[in-house]
């Protein structure tokens, strides 16, 4: 099959599954069979994506684009739809289909207690999400990308709010939708401005213009900043990161797929994809880098004080997305994308591992777990593998991608960003091992849940297999780079690898001393770092700030509108009706009931008419 056919098949398979589930309610309501349909389509899509990937690898970075006219316009179509296959999109396709497949298999067991119609709905959403994400990845132009971009946003909303009868989940879904929408407004304005300036949405012509330096240079900084805003919302960069931790209200497999491995990386993908355009505006790139590095550090500090295992992972995702953006901002987009791929694998592993833990003990609070390694040995092993990878320990996948990012930033001479990212690496190791020590080692919690530790056991095979596959991939990817070299052209100075290992080791040591050995009392550390600790616990007041702004702006505006409605609109109507009533009351008195009065009125009227006629004639 040609690359184009394969590329079309990858999103078409989940699309078929979605249409089938959406249009055939009896099938959807059966639950598990619906899931199997979705999984089968996903598995076929994975095969197609893998084949496409090997083709893309063999062709050595030649881009294949196939487009069809979409919006007609004078002198050729204004916009097209199609597929654009290169190493970037092929690698992304493999990641998306792989994680989606594993997550869907895992969900069969994780959501086994859901009623069948709800499970069918879940798989319909999952398939739609896969279509949207794959369409986004394959988009050959900004307009198609935007359409799928919004579709993944919709799926994210639907899946966060999967348990829509929980108020917190419904609120989180709406919050995620609105906050990402805030960035998307910038994105669409940027796209339209870019079209206005260049007359095309397509990447091909735009990249050619960038290469020939024929882009309208005056408008580019504003345009690219606006487009980047879309990525800020989607990839949870400061200050629009607040939706991602709340998105953990969704089922854990959803968090693994959408809010860790794929959808949130769409922003990084966008920046990587449009790198030739971003490269023409160094100031915007610097901004991207600074915001990325700041986000990485900020989110890492918040992860250190969080007690909810999923929220720790969520802040960790925000932090790692900041890493990728920092790399992109330093011009090392390939390093950022490399980190995106490895992070997608091991973060999905961590989330699914966390899901297995939550499934077993029925709580998200790490301080109510403890000593789980004995009860859940398999889960414990894969979680530790994921933690080591995230902390950047040789020879796991995270070590190489993190080193590539750090090297890219260092090569650019961005010393402050580099320092922030290095500190983040230390914090990453600390908060991940904090979770490991508190939840998996240490003493079991003295008052376990009613259905807690005594019955806690390892995940059923349907959940365990995806975990082991991801863990194996994390190790295999790392070994591949450890043995075969590679991992991008960013290696940095010789001291970089020891430094990043030392940072990870320091984080590990601190976590061990605080939470395992209890040589250092965490409360004293918190007291020593009091301002930062308090601020991080309050999430730097950003949620409160947004809530305050929301109250001030939206509720204030609503009050004004309410006043206008009550006193102007309603008032006018009330006045009119009062006048009508009073006028009717006055007119009523004319009806005296005495026949003579009526005759008098008739006679007088005739007289008036006669006089009038005489005067006019």
């Amino acid at each position: 099959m040609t690359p184009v056919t394969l590329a079309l098949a990858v999103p078409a398979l989940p699309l078929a599954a979605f249409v089938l589930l959406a249009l055939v309610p009896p099938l959807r309501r059966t639950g598990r069979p619906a899931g199997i349909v979705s999984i089968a389509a996903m598995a076929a899509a994975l095969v197609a994506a893998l084949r496409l990937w090997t083709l893309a690898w063999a062709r050595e970075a030649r881009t294949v684009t196939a487009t069809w006219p979409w919006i007609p316009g004078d002198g050729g179509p204004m916009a097209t739809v199609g597929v654009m296959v290169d190493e970037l999109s092929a690698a992304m396709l493999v990641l998306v289909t792989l994680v989606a497949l594993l997550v869907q298999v895992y969900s069969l067991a994780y959501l086994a207690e859901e009623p069948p119609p709800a499970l069918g709905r879940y798989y319909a959403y999952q398939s739609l999400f896969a279509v949207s994400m794959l369409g986004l990845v394959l988009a050959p132009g900004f307009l198609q990308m935007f359409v799928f971009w919004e579709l993944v946003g919709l799926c994210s909303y639907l899946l966060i709010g999967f348990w829509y009868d929980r108020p917190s989940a419904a609120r989180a879904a709406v919050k995620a939708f609105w906050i990402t929408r805030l960035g998307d407004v910038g994105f669409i304005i940027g796209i339209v401005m870019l079209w206005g300036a260049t007359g095309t949405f397509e990447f091909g012509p735009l990249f050619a213009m960038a290469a020939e330096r024929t882009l309208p240079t005056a408008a580019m900084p504003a345009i690219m900043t606006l487009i980047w805003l879309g990525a800020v919302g989607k990839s949870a960069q400061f200050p629009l990161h607040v939706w991602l931790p709340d998105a953990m209200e969704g089922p854990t497999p959803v968090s693994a797929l959408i809010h860790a491995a794929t959808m949130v990386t769409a922003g990084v993908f966008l920046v990587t994809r449009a790198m030739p355009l971003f490269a023409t505006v160094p100031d915007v790139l610097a901004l991207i880098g600074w915001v990325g590095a700041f986000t990485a550090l900020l989110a890492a500090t918040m992860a250190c004080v969080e007690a909810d295992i999923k929220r720790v992972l969520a802040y960790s995702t925000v932090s790692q997305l900041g890493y990728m953006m920092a790399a992109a901002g330093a011009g090392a987009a390939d390093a950022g994308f490399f980190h995106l791929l490895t992070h997608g694998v091991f973060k999905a592993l961590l989330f699914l591992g966390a899901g297995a833990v939550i499934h077993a003990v029925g709580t998200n609070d790490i301080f109510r777990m403890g000593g789980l390694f004995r009860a859940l040995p398999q889960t414990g092993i894969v979680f530790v593998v994921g933690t080591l990878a995230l902390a950047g320990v040789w020879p796991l996948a995270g070590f190489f991608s993190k080193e590539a990012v750090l090297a890219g930033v260092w090569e650019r001479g961005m010393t402050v960003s580099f320092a922030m990212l290095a500190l983040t690496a230390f914090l990453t190791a600390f908060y991940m091992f904090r979770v490991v020590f508190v939840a998996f080692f240490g003493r079991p919690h003295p008052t376990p849940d009613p259905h807690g530790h005594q019955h806690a056991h390892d995940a059923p095979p349907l959940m365990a297999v995806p975990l082991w596959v991801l863990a194996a991939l994390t190790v295999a990817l790392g070994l591949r780079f450890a043995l075969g070299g590679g991992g991008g052209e960013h290696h940095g100075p010789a001291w970089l690898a020891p430094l990043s290992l030392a940072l990870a080791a320091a984080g590990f040591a601190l976590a061990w001393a605080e939470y395992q050995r209890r040589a250092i009392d965490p409360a004293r550390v918190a007291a020593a770092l009091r301002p930062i600790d308090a601020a991080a616990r309050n999430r730097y007041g950003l949620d409160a700030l947004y809530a305050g702004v929301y109250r001030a702006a939206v509720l204030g505006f609503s009050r004004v509108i309410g006043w206008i409605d009550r006193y102007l609109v309603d008032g006018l109507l009330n006045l009119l009706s009062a006048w009508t009533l009073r006028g009717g009351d006055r007119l009523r008195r004319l009806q005296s009931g005495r026949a003579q009065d009526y005759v008098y009125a008739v006679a007088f009227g005739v007289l008036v008419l006669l006089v009038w006629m005489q005067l006019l004639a």
Partner: protein
Amino acid sequence: MGLHAYLALAALVFAIGLFGVLTRRNAIGILLGIELMLNAVNINLVAFARFHGDVAGVVFTLFTIAITVAEVGVGLAIVIAIFRVRKTVEADHLTLLRG
């Protein structure tokens, strides 16, 4: 005497009848006023018939007289019916249709 004299007489009778309708308080008096007004019209019709040499006016008058008789019959019957119920024929007291 010319046509104008008859017309003036008719107008006078009509006005007297209207005055009676408007001012009498007794329902029978009001009916009498109506009779005067109708007969003023009859005078007009006969006068025009006479001066224009057209018999049609006289024919109309005959019709009017017949209808007037019927009207008085119905009117008096209503007055009697009202008197039986309300024990009065004072027009000022018959204000059931007041708004």
